[in-house]
C-alpha cells in the first residue's frame, strides 16, 4: 500500500491512467446518453419524464460511492498514516458534494411533475441532504486551519464519524414509510427493473464512475503540485538573506 505513497511514482501512474479513464468517460457518456434518450422505452405511468432517472440515480449512487472512498481514504490516513489518504479525501470531497447536489436537484425536478412537490421531508431526501451537509462540513473543516495537515486530520475524523449516514440512506426507504421509490436495483431478490431500463442505468453509472476517477486524478495531481510549491516557497523563504545594512 505504501508503494504509491511516493509522489513521483503516483504521478507517473496517474499520468498513465488519466487518458484511459477520460476516454472511457467520453465513450460511456455518449453511449449512456444515447441509450437513455433514444433506445430505452418510456414508462407506462410516467411517460418520458422517467428519463430523469438516468441522471438522478447514478448521481445519487456516486454521492454515496465518493463518500465511501473518502471514508476509506481517511481510515488509511488515520490508521496507517498513509500520506495519500488525506490527499484523496480532500480531492474527492468537492466531487462528491457536486454529485449529491446534482442528485438533490434532479430529484427535485423529477419530483415536481411526479409527486407534485419540489421537496418533501421524507427519510431518503432528508438523509441525502444530511450527506450534502457532511460533505460541506468536511470541505470547511479541511480549510479551517492555518496548518493544512491539522485540517486534513480533523476532516478525516469527521469523514469516519459520518459513515453511519450511508446505511441510513440505503435502507431509509425500507425502514420508513417514504414517498421515494423503494429499492429497485440492489435488493436481495435481484433488480426489480426491466433490463431495457437497467442497461442504460448501469452504463450511465459506469460513465459517472469513470468521470469521478478522471477528475479525482486531476485534483490529486493538483494537490501534490500545490504541496510541492509550498515546500519550494518555504525553502526559498528560509534561504532569503537580508540585505546588509546601508
Amino acid at each position, binding site marked *: 500500500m505504501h508503494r504509491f505513497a511516493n509522489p513521483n511514482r503516483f504521478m507517473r501512474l496517474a499520468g498513465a491512467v488519466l487518458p484511459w479513464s477520460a476516454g472511457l468517460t467520453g465513450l460511456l457518456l455518449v453511449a449512456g446518453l444515447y441509450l437513455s434518450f433514444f433506445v430505452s422505452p418510456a414508462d407506462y405511468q410516467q411517460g418520458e419524464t422517467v428519463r430523469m432517472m438516468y441522471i438522478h440515480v447514478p448521481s445519487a449512487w456516486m454521492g454515496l460511492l465518493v463518500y465511501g472512498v473518502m471514508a476509506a481514504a481517511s481510515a488509511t490516513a*488515520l490508521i496507517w498514516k498513509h500520506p495519500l489518504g488525506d490527499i484523496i479525501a480532500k480531492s474527492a470531497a468537492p466531487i462528491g458534494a457536486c454529485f449529491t447536489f446534482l442528485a438533490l436537484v434532479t430529484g427535485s425536478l423529477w419530483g415536481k411533475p411526479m409527486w407534485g412537490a419540489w421537496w418533501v421531508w421524507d427519510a431518503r431526501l*432528508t438523509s441525502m441532504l*444530511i450527506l450534502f*451537509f*457532511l460533505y*460541506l*462540513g468536511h470541505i*470547511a*473543516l479541511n480549510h*479551517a*486551519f*492555518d496548518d493544512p495537515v*491539522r*485540517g486534513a*486530520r*480533523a476532516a*478525516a*475524523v*469527521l469523514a*469516519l*464519524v*459520518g459513515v453511519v*449516514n450511508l446505511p441510513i440512506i440505503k435502507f431509509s426507504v425500507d425502514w420508513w414509510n417514504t414517498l421515494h421509490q423503494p429499492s429497485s436495483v440492489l435488493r436481495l431478490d435481484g433488480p426489480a427493473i426491466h433490463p431495457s431500463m437497467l442497461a442504460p442505468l448501469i452504463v450511465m453509472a459506469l460513465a459517472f464512475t469513470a468521470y469521478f476517477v478522471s477528475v479525482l486524478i486531476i485534483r490529486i495531481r493538483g494537490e501534490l503540485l500545490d504541496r510541492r510549491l509550498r515546500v519550494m516557497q518555504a525553502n526559498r523563504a528560509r534561504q532569503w538573506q537580508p540585505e546588509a545594512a546601508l
Partner: protein
Amino acid sequence: MMTAFWLLVGRDLRLKLRHGGDSAMVLAFFVLGVALFPLGVGPETNILIRIGPGVIWVTALLASMLALDQLFRADYEDGNLELLVLGPLPLEAVVGAKALAHWLVAGFPLVVLAPLLALMLGIDAGAYPVLILAMALGTPVLTLIGAIGAALALGARQGGVLIALLVLPLYIPVLIFGVGAVDAAIDGLAVRPHLLILGGLFLFALVIGPWASAAALRQSLT
C-alpha cells in the same frame, strides 16, 4: 480511576459555575428563543401547540450549541489539555467527564425549563413527563456529539460557526425522534417507540462521542 474521573467533573463544574456566564447565556437564549415564536407566529393556540414541540427542541439544540465552543478551548489554550492527555485518566474518560460537567451546566437546566416553556406555548400538562424524559435522553446526546465537533474544530478560525456546521447534521435524528415523542404524547399515540430510539441514540452517543472526540483531540495535540 473513578476518583480521577469525579475529580475532573468537580473541577470543571467549579470552573463553569465560577464563570456563571456560560449557563446563563444558554438559558437566556433558550427562553428568549422560544418566547420569540408566539410573537412572530401569532398567539393562536392551535398553531402554537402544533409547532410547540419542534420550537422547544430546535431552540434547545441551538442553545446547547452556544456553549460547546467552551468545552475544550480554555484547557487547550492554557495547556491543561496536554496534561490531561498525559494523565492517568484515559482520554475517552476525560472527554466523558468534561461532557458530564457541560451537560450539568448547559443541558440539565434546559430539561428543567422545558415544561415551563411548554406551558407558555399552550401544550397540555399530560405531555410534560414525556417532554422531560425525551429531553433528558436527548440533551446528553447533544453534548456528546457536540464534543466531537468541539474537538474537531479546536484551534480553527471561526471555531463556533464551524462546530455548528459539523454538528447540526448529526443532531437531526435526535431532533426527529425527540419531537416525535412529544407529538405522540400530545396526540395520545404510542410514545414508547420514540423514547426507545432516543435511548438507543443516547447509548450510541455514549460510546461514539468520547471515542471520536478523543481521537480528534489526539490529532489536534500532535
